[in-house]
């Protein structure tokens, strides 16, 4: 009986092995082998694409169409591939000498999808709508006035330097005033973008139709279908099977899927440094990270390079300061955060009075140096935080710090961190502007300071950040930002680990797609080549 069972089981395993190994997938095109030389081909008769992504593009931001992913709605100011501010629906902007008044010139000849003219009234309506929904988004706004049909003036009670970035943020997209209900909710996402929303089936798909009168020229694609496919493996297999033409969005393609996709001759993998940095946070209020020496020791003990290599398959970039590479003009020129120096870490811990007890974990006054690394299950599902935490655990263990990793449900994670009941954690954070990012992480009243249980309180940094938010002169602001970054690397309330690399994949007949750090789609430039 046992023999028969063994034979049957082996048969089954062989059959499944044969099935998964055979078929029309090419066997083993080496990753580094150059793909077929690109020869210009004809445009396909039908200019339509189907793109798969891991979230519903109708959710988030409350617009009913994610502005960067769908391009149904556009903000006043765009960000180029280097994240520099460039004209969008606004063509020009100037600040008064005292930095209190902003004059914004709007683009001429733009219409919303419903035919409503895009003008000063529409913009003022939108700015007040967003300010009411999200107080403080545009700073301390005193008044907004129309100077003429296409020129507005925004007056602040005190200077607010990140104002332009706030205007360029995805959540500040312009919508036709007629599409907004009295209570501020949005009926239909009627914007000015190259595509309009034709239909949306929540949890399934969104169909976008070409806006023939787009101010930036008529897009080549007639229709775009965005398919919400939550499982990353299914998304990959749908692309391999040719059921979808593209995988877009942050987290669209996982690093571990790249080798498989590279084997496919008709699929091209695209990647660029994204605008989403990942930070490790330390609870500076509670023992043992209330001691700056211990925090610095953690910084020296951690090696982000190995994290990127082992947890992210090389798809990441080591951060050297709290400001990410996507804001490189605001990044301090020196590598402020020093990593991968376990000897220095041990030395700092020894100076702080931590002694080896023989167990490998350091001790001080009879108390072992053990900390809790708390992870959110929701984030672990999207980024390899579990593996990252294990690598950090091994690296800290090497210098005598014991780390207990705990993965908890997202709500519990937030609550525990807020109460200060965990010692460390990790999360991604794509801030609105270089200035507001520093405020959110490092100011004692910053959103993340309390929410992530950092509780960092440094009067000097607080003052510098407050000044930074009011400094409209860019050079002076950058100097302040550099100073703040220097203090942060000395005090180490957070440890910037890596800048995410955005990975997408397309079928080789899809042309013109340029990856944007903010995963903003250039749908108006994408086209389909005929497949021979």
């Amino acid at each position: 009986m046992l023999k028969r069972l063994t034979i049957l089981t082996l048969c089954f395993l062989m059959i499944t092995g044969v099935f998964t190994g055979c078929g029309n997938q090419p066997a083993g095109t080496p990753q580094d082998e150059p793909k077929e030389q690109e020869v210009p081909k004809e445009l396909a008769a039908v200019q339509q694409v189907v793109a798969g992504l891991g979230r519903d593009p109708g959710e988030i931001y409350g617009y009913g169409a994610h502005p960067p992913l769908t391009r149904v709605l556009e903000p006043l100011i765009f960000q180029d591939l280097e994240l520099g501010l460039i004209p969008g629906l606004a063509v020009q902007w100037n600040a008064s000498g005292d930095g209190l008044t902003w004059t914004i010139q709007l683009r001429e000849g733009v219409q919303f999808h419903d035919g409503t003219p895009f003008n000063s009234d529409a913009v003022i309506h939108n700015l007040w709508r967003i300010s009411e929904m999200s107080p403080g988004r545009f700073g301390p706004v005193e008044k907004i006035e129309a100077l003429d049909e296409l020129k507005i003036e925004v007056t602040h009670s005190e200077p607010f330097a990140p104002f332009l970035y706030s205007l360029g943020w995805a959540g500040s997209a312009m919508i036709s005033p007629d599409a907004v209900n009295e209570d501020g909710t949005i009926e239909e996402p009627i914007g000015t973008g190259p595509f309009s929303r034709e239909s949306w089936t929540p949890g399934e798909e969104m169909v976008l139709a070409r806006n023939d009168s787009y101010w930036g020229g008529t897009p080549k694609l007639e229709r775009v279908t965005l398919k919400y496919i939550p499982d990353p493996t299914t998304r990959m297999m749908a692309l391999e099977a040719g059921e979808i033409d593209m995988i877009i969005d942050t987290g669209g393609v996982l690093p571990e899927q790249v080798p498989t996709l590279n084997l496919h001759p008709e699929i091209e993998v695209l990647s660029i440094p994204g605008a989403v940095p990942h930070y490790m946070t330390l609870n500076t209020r509670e023992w043992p990270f209330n001691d700056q020496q211990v925090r610095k020791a953690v910084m020296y003990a951690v090696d982000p390079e190995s994290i990127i290599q082992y947890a992210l398959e090389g798809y990441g970039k080591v951060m050297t300061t709290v400001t990410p590479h996507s804001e490189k003009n605001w990044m301090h020129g020196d590598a402020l955060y020093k990593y991968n120096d376990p000897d220095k870490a041990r030395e700092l811990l020894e100076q702080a009075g931590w002694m080896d007890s023989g167990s490998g974990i350091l001790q001080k006054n009879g108390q072992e140096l053990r900390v809790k690394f708390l992870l959110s299950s929701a984030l672990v599902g999207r980024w390899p935080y579990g593996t990252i935490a294990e690598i950090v655990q091994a690296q800290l263990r090497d210098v005598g710090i014991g780390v207990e990793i705990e993965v908890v449900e997202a709500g519990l994670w937030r609550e525990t961190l807020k109460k200060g009941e965990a010692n460390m954690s990790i999360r991604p954070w794509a801030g609105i502007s270089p200035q507001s990012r520093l405020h959110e992480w490092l100011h004692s009243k910053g959103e993340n300071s309390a929410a992530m249980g950092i509780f960092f309180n440094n009067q000097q940094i607080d003052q510098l950040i407050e000044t930074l938010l009011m400094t409209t002169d860019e050079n002076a602001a950058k100097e302040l930002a550099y100073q703040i970054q220097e203090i942060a690397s000395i005090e180490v309330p957070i440890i910037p680990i890596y800048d995410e690399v955005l990975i997408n994949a397309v079928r080789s007949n899809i042309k013109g797609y340029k990856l944007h750090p903010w995963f903003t789609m250039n749908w108006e430039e994408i086209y389909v080549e005929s497949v021979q």
Partner: protein
Amino acid sequence: MTHYLLRRFCAMFFILLCVSIITFSLMHFVPGDPAEIIAEKKFGENVTTETVELVRREMGLDRPIFIQYFRWIAGVLQGDFGSSSSTGRPVWNEIMTKLPATAELALTAMLVSLVIAIPVGVISAVKQYSIMDSVSMVGAMLGVSMPNFWLGLLLILVFSVNFGWLPVYGRGEITQLILPALTLGTGIAAVTARLTRSSILEILKQDYIRTARSKGLIETAVINRHALKNALIPVVTVVGLQFGALLEGAVVVEVIFAWPGLGRLLFDAIYARDFPVIQGCVFLIAVMYVIVNLIIDISYAWLDPRIRYEVK
């Protein structure tokens, strides 16, 4: 029978009341601030404290919990389950647009499982200890042991990516139903097959089977007319209970195959902490579960005329 049904309906009412209280309480006692989550959903991650407070007032989340419950249950009784915090659409509409997809998948999977399980169970029992018996029981063992997500991905890899015979994901065409129904159906087929086998083996030892055989009935008639119907009573009970497993399995299968059903709605709602949708889905699943079990209980009388629900 009328008495029995009335009693069962009263019990159903209390069960559903308890389910509603427990679901509502659980949602509100789990850590995390719903107002903050809704605000983040609406305005992105960078929400201010003022925005969170604004959302809290707007959603009535600043009211005492029992008032929130009574408002919710009063709405439910009028068919209003509130609005989804993710999409802003009424929960009832959200559920009703997804329910047909799940019903289609669950019923097809159930059919697949019965079509596989009953013949396999019967053959295994009749040909006990034969090669056929061993093969089907190993198959059943594998079916039980294989997780849905693994089987689903394996089927996609073989039949969609390698052979290109069936679509990878989605709903709309009949071909899109095959792989998810197979994935979901095979797991429960395994349990049903094993149960059918043991149940038939038990029945085959009964005196009336010996009588049937001694009357000179051919074996097929003995199995089909006398053994199978009696053997089905425990099977039907388990199939009823499996309905819960089917809905549970549907969550995983719907995510893998991007099947736009109730399971995925619930999965997304849990992930997004969309409390109104979670409450609505759990409540509705409880209603379906209770009704299916009532139908199962009533079907006993048809399968076994000796079973009566009232003493005359």
